[in-house]
């Protein structure tokens, strides 16, 4: 129209203008479902509830209104500083209800849904089967299996099962579904028309059988490995738990190894991973909520927390961010993390990733929230603080002086990994007077033959180290570590011999690399590698002044950063109550409270005197009775110790 009235240029300008405006306005694409339109977001844990899916007779205006209402309900929790919130009152939602209703209410399968999928089941088996075949592209899709058979009733009842070859267990289908239905059904004796009920109660020995009444729920179940049973003249289908695919067995941790402590790590199967945590967290209050994410991937995403302990605002915020994530394919927590983190432009990791079930259980017990994805061997823990990224599981498995020492070593490693090359550059280029004379002469002598300026020398070595590291990771199998060692040794030696770099720089780069490896969090170690280059440039341009300015800007950025509303540097700044478990590690029996920045519903973790036996011993000794175990002499000092413990708190 524009081009007609004002020529093609006006039309073009108009279109461009509209395009620009559309960039600022979010218009949901057609077919994208709102949170309330989801009817099949049940948990894979097998809740056996029927979704009451009535044909939608509401007007479009009413539907829009309802959708807006639902969104406003979802948006009740805004990203804000959770530290400032009081969450003393327990959540009104009971754990059992939360697991089922909340997930279906706020966790839509995000993205475009085929309108056929939303249809309810009919009474006609052929119609239902054809609809499912159409949705699953039966015939084209090689792994979709449809098996039609008769159940021996009088007259015979037609039935069909649908499953995905490879996801569903063949033996289970043969011996726990087909055999009882086809061979031992004996339904002829029964004078009842409700075959479905009979099949469910008497003929399906599977431990999880769920009734489904809409195509979408069936498709979801089938695609996650369940087998769907359709029966003639029934508008309800049964999905039977038959998931059995090839998977890696539970292995040792590869990124968070410890000498002392459990040696189990998550693998790619969500069910197994959740069981690993449940084994360590046997309270009924440990809740696993299931959401689904990814238009194409439709991956199960588990949100983990302890009901009655974890801050409900934090749980809501985590669920809100996940459910508001709109993407087609999210297959790993590493991808999900990028969608839900607060500030994507800061190098600092804003979530904690772990592959250790014991660590996840410990975090949950403190009031953190966990996220796990099916297919991802790494779980996310939220929120992250700077200090938690320097902590390792082993800190707690060792006695406290050793744990505290390890943390001090790691802090030193962090400082060396970021600043050592920059300090070397600043000292040699700008402030040589600081270097002791003997050392200065030694450095000068070794650098005599090196033709490059120090900056080039440092960059050559740092880039070489990065190349060795990257090549070591990409190299197959056993060659990787070998290449790393050979590359580092030979390259360093050869570079010195060829007068490309000075020997002292090889030492500095090696210490720096070791420092980066000593940082327990993989993401943090990555951030350090990048920060190091920034500081090298700053030191090369402005010496110590540049480094100091960089430190200040980093400091300001970090103290301003928040992870899920929690200040990144808490509990140090802003100062908050904690067990002192930040840079230092106190004795575990002194760690009486949970981190207050999480605003847990139960702040106290253990009583004032957690070592109850000390109290008992004091009582016994005060009553003058002997222990009678021959340790009287050694026990004489205990009352004093116990007093110290009570009064020193």
């Amino acid at each position, binding site marked *: 129209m524009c081009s007609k009235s004002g020529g093609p240029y006006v039309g073009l300008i108009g279109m461009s203008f509209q395009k620009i405006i559309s960039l600022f306005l979010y218009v949901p694409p057609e077919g994208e479902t709102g949170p309330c339109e989801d009817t099949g977001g049940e948990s894979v844990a097998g809740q056996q509830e029927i979704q009451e899916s009535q044909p939608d007779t509401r007007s479009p205006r009413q539907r829009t209104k309802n959708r807006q209402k639902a969104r406003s309900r979802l948006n009740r929790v805004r990203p804000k*500083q959770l530290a*400032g919130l009081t969450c003393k009152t327990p959540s009104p939602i009971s754990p059992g209800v939360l697991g089922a209703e909340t997930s279906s209410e706020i966790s839509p399968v995000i993205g475009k849904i085929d309108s056929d999928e939303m249809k309810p089941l009919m009474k006609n088996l052929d119609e239902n089967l054809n609809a499912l075949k159409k949705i699953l592209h039966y015939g084209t899709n090689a792994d979709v299996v449809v098996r039609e058979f008769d159940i021996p009733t009088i007259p015979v009842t037609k039935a069909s099962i649908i499953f995905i070859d490879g996801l569903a267990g063949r033996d289970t289908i043969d011996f726990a579904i087909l055999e009882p239905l086809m061979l031992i059904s004996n339904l002829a004796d029964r004078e009842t028309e409700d075959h479905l009920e009979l099949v469910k109660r008497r003929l399906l020995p599977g431990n999880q059988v769920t009734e489904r009444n809409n195509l979408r729920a069936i498709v979801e179940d089938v695609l996650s490995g369940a087998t769907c049973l359709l029966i003639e003249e029934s508008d309800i289908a049964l999905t039977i738990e038959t998931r059995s695919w090839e998977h890696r067995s539970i292995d040792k941790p590869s990124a968070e190894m410890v000498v002392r402590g459990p040696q189990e790590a998550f693998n790619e199967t969500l069910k197994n991973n959740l069981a690993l945590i449940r084994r360590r967290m046997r309270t009924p209050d440990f809740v696993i909520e299931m959401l689904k994410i990814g238009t194409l991937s439709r991956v199960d995403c588990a949100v983990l927390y302890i009901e009655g302990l974890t801050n409900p605002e934090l749980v809501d915020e985590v669920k809100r961010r996940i459910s508001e994530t709109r993407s087609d394919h999210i297959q790993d927590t590493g991808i999900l993390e990028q969608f839900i983190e607060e500030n994507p432009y800061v190098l600092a990791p804003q979530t904690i990733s772990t592959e250790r079930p014991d660590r996840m259980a410990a975090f949950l017990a403190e009031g953190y929230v966990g996220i796990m994805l099916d297919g991802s061997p790494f779980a996310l823990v939220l929120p992250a603080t700077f200090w938690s990224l320097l902590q390792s599981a082993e800190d707690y498995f060792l006695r406290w002086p050793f744990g505290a020492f390890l943390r001090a070593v790691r802090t030193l490693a962090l400082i060396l990994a970021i600043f050592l090359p920059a300090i070397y550059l600043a000292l040699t280029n*700008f*402030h040589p*007077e*600081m270097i*002791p004379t003997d050392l200065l002469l030694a450095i000068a002598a070794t650098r005599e033959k090196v033709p490059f300026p120090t900056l080039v020398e440092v960059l050559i070595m740092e880039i070489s180290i990065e190349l060795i590291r990257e090549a070591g990771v990409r190299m197959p199998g056993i060659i990787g570590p070998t290449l790393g060692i050979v590359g580092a040794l030979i390259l360093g030696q050869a570079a010195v011999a060829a007068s490309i770099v000075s020997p002292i720089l090889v030492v500095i780069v090696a210490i720096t690399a070791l420092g980066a490896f000593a940082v327990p969090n993989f993401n943090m170690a990555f951030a350090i590698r990048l920060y190091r280059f920034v500081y090298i440039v700053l030191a090369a341009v*402005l*010496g*110590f*002044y*540049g*480094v*100091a*300015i960089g*430190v*200040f*800007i980093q*400091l*300001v*950025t970090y*103290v*301003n950063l928040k992870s899920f509303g929690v*200040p990144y*540097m808490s509990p*140090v*700044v*802003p*100062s908050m109550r904690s067990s002192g478990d930040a840079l230092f590690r106190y004795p575990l029996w002194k760690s009486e409270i949970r981190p207050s920045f999480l605003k847990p519903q139960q702040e106290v973790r253990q009583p004032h005197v957690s070592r109850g036996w000390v109290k008992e011993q004091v009582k016994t000794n005060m009553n003058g009775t002997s222990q009678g175990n021959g340790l009287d002499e050694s026990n004489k000092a205990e009352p004093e110790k116990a007093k110290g413990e009570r009064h020193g708190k």
Partner: protein
Amino acid sequence: MASEGKIGTREAIAATVYFLSTKLLISFPQHMAEMGQTAAWIVPIVSFAVATLGFLIIVALIERYPGKGIVEASEEAGGPVLGLIASLGYFAFFFATTVLLIREFSETVSTALLPRTPLSVIMAVFIIATLVAVYNGLEAVTRAASLGMPLIIGTLILLNLMLLPQSNFDVIFPLFGPGIWKLIYNGTVHSGIAGEVMFLSVIAGQLDERHKVKTMGLISLSVAASFMIVSTLVYSAVFPYPLSLHITYPGYEASTLIYSGRFLQHIEVAFVFLWVISACIHLALSGYTATVIIRDMLKLPSHKPLLPAFAILGFTFALVPSDVPQATHVDFMTVKTYGGLAIFVMPLILLLIARLKTGPGPDRR
């Protein structure tokens, strides 16, 4: 007032202490010697005592207007004209402090670390760092101050301890230098050296525990005064009067005298490293206070749009003094002298007017 996050008591105190005491890193001791001669360390005692009285007046003024900062309180008490004049006075003090500190800190860096780098480059980098901090807001700046507080306390204690072998405390006699009345006069006139305490009243609306503003101010003044007095005393003992009149950066010069064995030498560079961070925090605080005063005067929703203009103005004005002595002279002899009038006397006048208008107690209108 724009809604920014609330800041805690600890952060507020740390920021105010930083604000008050970082001038030790520049030519503050030299000017104390100028005013107090051998009794240079007594001048801050008097100045801080007077500033404490002034601060109590400021608190009395803002307590009349619950929920409001000093700028709004001044406007309420004095009306639009007098309130505007008062706010301009506060702004002038903090803006001049920022500008002159940029110059003085840059000159220190130029002297100590980068003698061959153009001054304008050093200044520009300082301004960029300040801009980033002020853009991030009060929470970021005060938390950075809180995190850096152990750093500055540690540095000052270490520096003073390491200077003890070089100190000769006989040179602080005669104890009262030019005479006790002269000391009291000089200290009172230069009470503006603690004028930064007004910062607490500017951000009063953002304090988590506003009712504790008086306590916060008194603690900050006491801690900062202790730093100033002890450090000036040690510098006076290391550089006796009148030698101290000719040393522009006594802190830096004193650190060059530290001898800690054959291996560890010239550790002044390490101190300068810490000073740069402290200077950045100070500049961020003063820059933030100046922009927030203008924001509140103009009733803007955010201070962020003002930042580019302030950065350019700051850079330009910082280049105006012809050399360091002129910059430090203007800072201590002009800003810190007449600044006291704007910071402490103006609120007193406004308080009196408010009492005449509405009587004692909080304004219930």
